């Protein structure tokens, strides 16, 4: 039986179940119908909370009027990572880049046409305050603000889906949300690192065991020359310093996803004091770099 496949949050997902005996080339077995339904419901809930592409989401409501907003139970872990990365990148990575992305054309209607000069994100301390109350995390805003959790949200959802399955007794899983993935249990997997300039080629293969791998490449979502979704929050402009793809391996997909964006903005050495991770980075001139502890092969 083949792994479970479906489309959600705009990308194809694959979830396979299997332990150490699963062949390398197999994602694993399909989920039961009940488990599949539970996974889809969890993803839908995340989308209804965090998507800036649907009008009825919490994030869309926060973008329309100021106020005090009770955030969902999963918010604390996600926003705590953003707080850390915001500090480590001198505010260049921020969840407040929603309006910057809209300015560049990456909006809910997919206009894909810039509507003026790049717009720097509002400063965190000016725009939002987080309060941890007994009932959960509260977000206070003094003006409408458009949150965008694109840098780490998909990875986090990969974690949440794996957590949900583990709680249902399905502990050996491969959850793959189109390149942001996490494997749990006894098996090891091999992940091809796709050359962003040529999808038939891999620039390397990562060996993964009880870990997550997330990739980030501007040209995965490019809608014009120099226009892509990895934004420097300080300038409101897409990053353009010659890195064209990054992959990060970490214990959780939340951390791997966030760091895959952060290493576009700062040197990986700056982040290695706070997080345990390995990384691979491909530059426009074809230079391929990896951290010393990277497990796998590189074909440079």
């Amino acid at each position, binding site marked *: 039986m083949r792994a479970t496949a479906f489309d959600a949050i705009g990308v194809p997902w694959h979830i396979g179940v299997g332990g150490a005996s699963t062949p390398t080339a197999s994602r694993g077995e399909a989920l039961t119908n009940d488990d599949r339904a539970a996974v889809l419901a969890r993803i839908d809930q995340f989308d209804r909370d965090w998507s800036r592409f649907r009008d009825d989401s919490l994030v869309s409501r926060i973008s329309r009027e100021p106020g005090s907003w009770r955030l969902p139970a999963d918010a604390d872990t996600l926003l705590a990572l953003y707080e850390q990365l915001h500090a480590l990148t001198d505010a260049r990575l921020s969840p407040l880049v929603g309006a910057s992305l809209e300015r560049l054309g990456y909006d809910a209607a997919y206009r894909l046409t810039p509507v003026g000069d790049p717009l720097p994100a509002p400063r965190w301390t000016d725009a939002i305050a987080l309060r941890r109350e007994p009932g959960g995390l509260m977000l206070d805003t003094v003006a409408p603000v458009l949150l965008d959790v694109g840098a780490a949200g998909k990875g986090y959802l990969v974690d949440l889906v794996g957590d949900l399955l583990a709680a249902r007794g399905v502990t050996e899983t491969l959850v793959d949300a189109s390149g942001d993935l996490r494997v749990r249990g006894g098996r090891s997997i091999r992940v091809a690192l796709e050359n962003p300039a040529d999808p038939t080629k891999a620039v390397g293969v990562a060996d993964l065991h009880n870990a997550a791998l997330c*990739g980030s490449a501007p040209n995965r979502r490019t809608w014009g020359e*120099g226009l892509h979704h990895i934004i420097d929050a300080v300038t409101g402009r897409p990053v353009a310093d010659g890195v064209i793809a990054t992959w990060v391996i970490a214990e959780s997909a939340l951390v791997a996803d966030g760091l895959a964006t952060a290493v576009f903005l700062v040197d990986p050495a700056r982040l290695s004091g706070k997080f345990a991770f390995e990384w691979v980075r491909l530059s*426009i001139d074809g230079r391929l770099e990896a951290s010393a502890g990277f497990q796998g092969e590189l074909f440079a």
Partner: protein
Amino acid sequence: MMTGSARTRAARIAAPIGATAALLGTLTGCSTATADAEVPVDASYRDGTFQANGTYESPNGSENIIVALTLENDVVTDVQITTNPNNPTTANYQGQFADGIGELVIGEDIDTLNVTVVAGSSLTSNGFRAALTAIKADAVES
């Protein structure tokens, strides 16, 4: 003006074109063919050098890029990319883009590797794709 050069196979650059029509709404080509013409991936092409102009809107206004392909026996034997930036920011982006085409053909065929999954996906820049699609429509044997 900046020019980059590359050698690659037709099949490799032909593959992603079909899926890109949705993003091409703001683009125009100076070729007689329309930018979103449908050409079968296994089509046969005339030998020769073909050129097309891709125009796109940047935050700084209209910019264009010229792509020239040389085809021999349905294989691309040369790619010339000429950028004509209207401002320094675009020059920077286009320079990276033009430089990158030739040098990034590295790696090993994924089909030959025993892997579980592939991380990453590929979309080429819009201006390049629009110009390339126009070239394909221009060069296809009728």
